């Protein structure tokens, strides 16, 4: 599988899946991002932009079973996810989108979207409601 964007989220996903026995290739623009994977990272790591089709092919996207897209740009994540799904036919593509409005629209266009902002909003709202209930 491929993880594109190795920030806090991407690197943790890569580490968890590697530990679970997956063959993992990580792509990030910054060489320093390798640091997040730790000194004993046993997967692949490629430096470059996640939209770079040559790089994606070199990373083996054509044979990937899953792609997780978690760069720091919503729009990059969206179009990389669409490319992985529609052009390379990756069976499982998950895309992180922070903006709830775009997340909802691109989910309706067939992308498998995770929106941490929406999750945070509902968790926080629920927490306040629960606290309010306890006060009464």
């Amino acid at each position: 599988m491929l993880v594109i964007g190795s920030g806090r989220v991407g690197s943790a996903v890569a580490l968890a899946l590697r530990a679970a026995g997956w063959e993992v290739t990580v792509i990030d623009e910054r060489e320093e991002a390798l640091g997040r994977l730790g000194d004993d990272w046993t997967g692949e790591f490629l430096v470059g932009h996640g939209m770079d089709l040559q790089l994606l092919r070199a990373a083996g996207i054509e044979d990937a079973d899953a792609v997780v897209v978690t760069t720091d740009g919503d729009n990059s994540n969206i179009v990389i996810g669409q490319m992985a799904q529609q052009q390379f036919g990756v069976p499982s593509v998950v895309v992180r989108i922070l903006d709830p409005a775009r997340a909802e629209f691109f989910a309706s266009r067939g992308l498998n979207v995770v929106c941490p902002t929406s999750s945070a909003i509902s968790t926080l709202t629920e927490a306040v409601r629960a606290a309010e209930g306890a006060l009464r």
Partner: protein
Amino acid sequence: MYVLIAGGGKVGSNLARTLIREGHEVTLIESRDTRFAQLEAEFEHQVHKGDATELFILERAGIERPPDFVVAVTGDDEDNLVICQLARHRYGVPNVIARVNDPRNQPYFDLLGISPTVSATATIMALIEHEVPAHGLIHLLELKKENLVIDEITVGERAACAGKELGEVAFPAGSRVISVVRDGKAEMPDDSLRLESGDSVLVILEPGKEDELRRVLVRE
């Protein structure tokens, strides 16, 4: 006509200026603070501040009317790709035009059906191919829907194919010679026509087979 332009750089602002001068209604969206301040001095209420990939910014700029055209000319291809998809599929905008900043990203625009696209690099390359005969091959026409191009190519000075009959030359599969121009006169050739160096050969073929064609007609 109402045109929404995302991206107020050189391309976006000059386009806005030209359209306004011709009497069209224009809204410009720009996200950078200093650039927005400059644009506001000139375009006043016709420029909106914000990220044109945010739905509420697009809506504030009037995308729900919808505009006749949405032109996405920001400096980021991923933004232009998202703006055009939102415009077309969420707001029903009939026409979108996108700028391709990095020609290597063209496949994204093709995959997502975003057309027409404008790329400075591709335009300049096409001009060079038209203007520099030494390059050997000239794109005369591109039939995008039919996936065919018509190219003109000059038989090289010591090309291996010179002196051969057309029927003996191994043209790329699926290509067809339309005409051979010699000394300014166009012939509708049959297989027995003997090629000479300096002949201009007009060929219809699939895009991407140009290199193969060039090898056949130019290689020594």
